[in-house]
């Protein structure tokens, strides 16, 4: 059988693959790194077991079996007592080895779980509440000082080297918060708050995606975690805490009027304006974000125009209302929203 080639193939794909932004095996922080180490120890140990079992299996097909006489099985259907006792020793030994290996794996697994749990108890943590919605993420930076509490959506910035506590909640159905480069999953369950600690030890953009089936657009519920050095994070935070910039060009002033005079305001908030809806992503700094519609598409003017005109074709079934924006209003509206850096 050609299975010997499979581990080699698997390895080359695992190491050489181009997509690393949402991979459990490309850790960007200590939690994911510990799981990655545990994975490879499991992989090698279980891989060796697989090869041994397959070797034995293949050997049963050949005539050559160690120290076995060819017995007249067609008549008696029984192996000789010597063969039986010898085989019994081997099978017993294999069972004992299996138990020992499993014991080692349990200890390694529980030890890793404990080590990951210990990573949470550090000083100076940042607390972020992530709320799942059909089909987007609300991100709220918790701060004792209400003026420092920030609400945004679908994109989370965190400082490198600082532990972050994720408090998970849900507005509607069960979702699951998962940024594989940083940590495993944690479900977001309505009526409960779940808890997970993440930390990035190198700057980068890590993609995450909802991992619990949550309905029609489960496939289009992604978020970005942007890990930045402390000073850049602070600058980002300061900027995000500001209300939205007032429109400065004629085009964007018109765009703001279009936004405020339409049904947009019932669901979306833009701080600094009269738009105060709470049912949909906060758009105060929409222009600074990477994606549209929970990162279904990149945030470009073209995509945004398409999204506003017909949200149902890009992400069928999503809860954004289709609003009749006439063609002369569309361009100003897009310009305005993209100006909200």
């Amino acid at each position: 059988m050609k299975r010997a080639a499979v581990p080699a193939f698997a390895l080359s794909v695992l190491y050489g693959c181009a997509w690393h932004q949402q991979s459990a095996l490309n850790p960007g922080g200590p939690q994911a790194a510990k799981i990655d180490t545990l994975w490879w120890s499991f992989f090698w140990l279980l891989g060796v077991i697989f090869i041994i079992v397959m070797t034995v299996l293949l050997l049963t097909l050949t005539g050559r079996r160690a120290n076995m006489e060819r017995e007249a099985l067609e008549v008696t259907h029984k192996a000789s007592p010597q063969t039986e006792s010898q085989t019994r020793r081997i099978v017993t030994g294999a069972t004992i080895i299996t138990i020992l290996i499993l014991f080692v794996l349990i200890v390694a697994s529980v030890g890793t779980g404990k080590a990951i749990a210990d990573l949470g108890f550090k000083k100076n943590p940042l607390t972020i509440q992530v709320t799942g919605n059909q089909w987007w993420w609300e991100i709220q930076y918790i701060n004792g000082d209400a003026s420092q509490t920030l609400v945004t959506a679908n994109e989370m910035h965190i400082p490198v080297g600082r532990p972050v506590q994720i408090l998970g909640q849900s507005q509607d159905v069960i979702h699951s918060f998962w940024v594989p480069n940083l940590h495993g999953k944690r479900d977001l369950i309505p009526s409960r708050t779940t808890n997970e600690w993440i930390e990035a030890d190198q700057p980068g953009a890590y993609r995450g995606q909802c991992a619990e089936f949550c309905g029609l657009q489960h496939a289009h519920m992604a978020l970005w975690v942007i890990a930045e050095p402390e000073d850049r994070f602070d600058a980002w935070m300061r900027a995000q805490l500001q209300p939205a910039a007032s429109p400065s060009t004629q085009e964007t002033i018109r765009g703001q009027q279009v936004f405020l005079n339409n049904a947009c305001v019932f669901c979306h908030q833009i701080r600094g304006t009269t738009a105060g809806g709470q049912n949909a992503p906060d758009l105060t700094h929409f222009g600074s974000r990477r994606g549209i519609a929970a990162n279904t598409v990149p945030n470009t003017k073209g995509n945004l125009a398409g999204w506003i005109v017909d949200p149902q074709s890009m992400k069928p079934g999503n809860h954004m209302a289709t609003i009749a924006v006439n063609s002369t209003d569309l361009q100003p509206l897009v310009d305005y929203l993209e100006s909200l850096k």
Partner: protein
Amino acid sequence: MTATQDFTPQIPNQAEEVEQLHRSWRHPRGVLGWLSYTTHQAIGTRYIITAFIMLLTGGAEALLMRTQLARPNNGFLSPDRYNEIFTTHGTTMMFLFAVPMMEGMAIYLVPLMCGTRNVAFPRLNAFGYWMFLFGVLFLYWGVFTNAAPDVGWFAYPPLSGPQFTPGKRTDYWAQMITFTEVSALCVATEIIATIFKMRAPGMSLNRMPLYVWSLLIQSFMVIFAMPAVVIASSYLLSDRTVATQFVNPAEGGDPILYQHVFWFFGHPEVYIIFIPALGFVSAIVVAHARREIFGYTAMVLAQIANGFIAFGLWVHHMFATGLPQIGEAYFTASSMMIAITSGVQIFCWLATLWTGRPRLTTALHFIYGFLVIFVVGGLTGVVLASVPLDWQVHDTYFVVAHFHYVLIGGALFPLFGAFYHWFPKITGRMMDEKIGRLNFWVLFIGFNLTFFPMHIQGLMGMPRRVYTYPAEMGWGPLNFIETIGAYIIGIGGILFIANVVSSHRSGRIAGNNPWDADSLEWATASPPENYNFEYLPVATSRYPLWVDRSERAFVTGLRNDRREALVTTLMDAEPHHRYVFPASSIWPFITAIAVTIGFAGSVFNPWYIVWGSVLSGLALVGWFWPRGDSEAES
């Protein structure tokens, strides 16, 4: 009447007695007669054929999904259609194919292997089949009237609740579960009763074939697991139909409670499917390696332990909900224990093959394929038992790969082995070995091409149950390979059907025991007559057909002018008394219709529970009405 039995007894008026047996076991005629069959061969075959059609249906659904996922941002299926199809695929494969198929095989084989004439409760058996069939029709009526369920085969609330899934889709799903529960409990009851009380004299528990052991364990598991899913689906149904708030978090209900109850059933469900498959493996290994099983006692104990442990590890489906560390450690350990009991069985099969003289038939090919695939699935199961690793791979394609390795490798490959092994018994003709081998290799290659890359894909971040994915994620090439693999599996399926059709028509005549196998089903004609054995056999050994002919024995003195068999004691199978099977009857069918009116109607109006109960009560009066015929005498 020719002597069709290997236990050829010399009885003076044999021909006359056999003629009497023929008459008393004859099926009633006509359409109504056909609906009244109660012999285990007929019911078993109906289960097998219906479940096989469900396998093809579920397979077609899988091909639709694979076609959609073949490339990024594909528009072949809309998201709602995709969600319906993956839900129906999972539901069909678990509830309408795998479990009923294993039950059908058991209904056909257990009475033969135990050396008796029918299952203990033939009318209940017929009723169970009709309930299963009506469950199938009920779900697919929904599917074809655009009311297919779309919340996953697990239907987690609150997504499956009335607020987020209005309409009747989820109700169809939940009520279909009720149909299959009833059917599964009927089968479990009669299999246990048949095994405990109707084994051939001399077949003490420690002489039972391992396949019979596996069915005994599976049936007990059904009895303990099904009530949990009754609770889960009842929570959901009553929340949806009469606004109880068991699992609705908005009103203080607990959605996690649903998950616990569902998986308390859901995990054993997997073993309910694959423990009988392990029984197939043991039977085929023994017959085709031509030696007694190595480590019979260890095998039996390992299977029993499997059955127990299966109920202690449901939480490993819920590691991502967040548990205290001590709970995580417990469920990691209990999940890994399954590897010990499965390991023991694999070692024993390897030892049997190693010290035996394997004859590389198609059936044994499938067993070798099983061993390769199942070992991979078992090892990835160890990965999933580890909480930190599970956090990463849970609900990704890694898990999809794992359970297809375990279920296709662990249940479907042995099942195909079983088809090739027992086809001669069931039809009287051999299947073609050349096409059989091609069939095996196509399935084996197609399977690995489809499911092996999914391990990598899951580690690379692709979640399950997404109808599409962006091209930038780079999952496209692996998905494309998998889709090709899925179509190769489809070709394997067509080869199998072609082989069945041509062999059924013109295969070589099999004779009683073409494999020179050891167990009692090979001691009679192929296909067996309705009464199975002219004279019930006596088991003088664990391998009754491998003892010298002169030492074989049989039972005489049963009445042949009515459907009679021997009841034996539980432990040692000593003859206890004669037992009369009820005659064929239309009432199981009528009762099933009455119950179906209640079940199906209650989805639309709770009052149908009342009407259905009244009708079922009336039908049961008919079922049990004394008729003054031979059955009343006893």
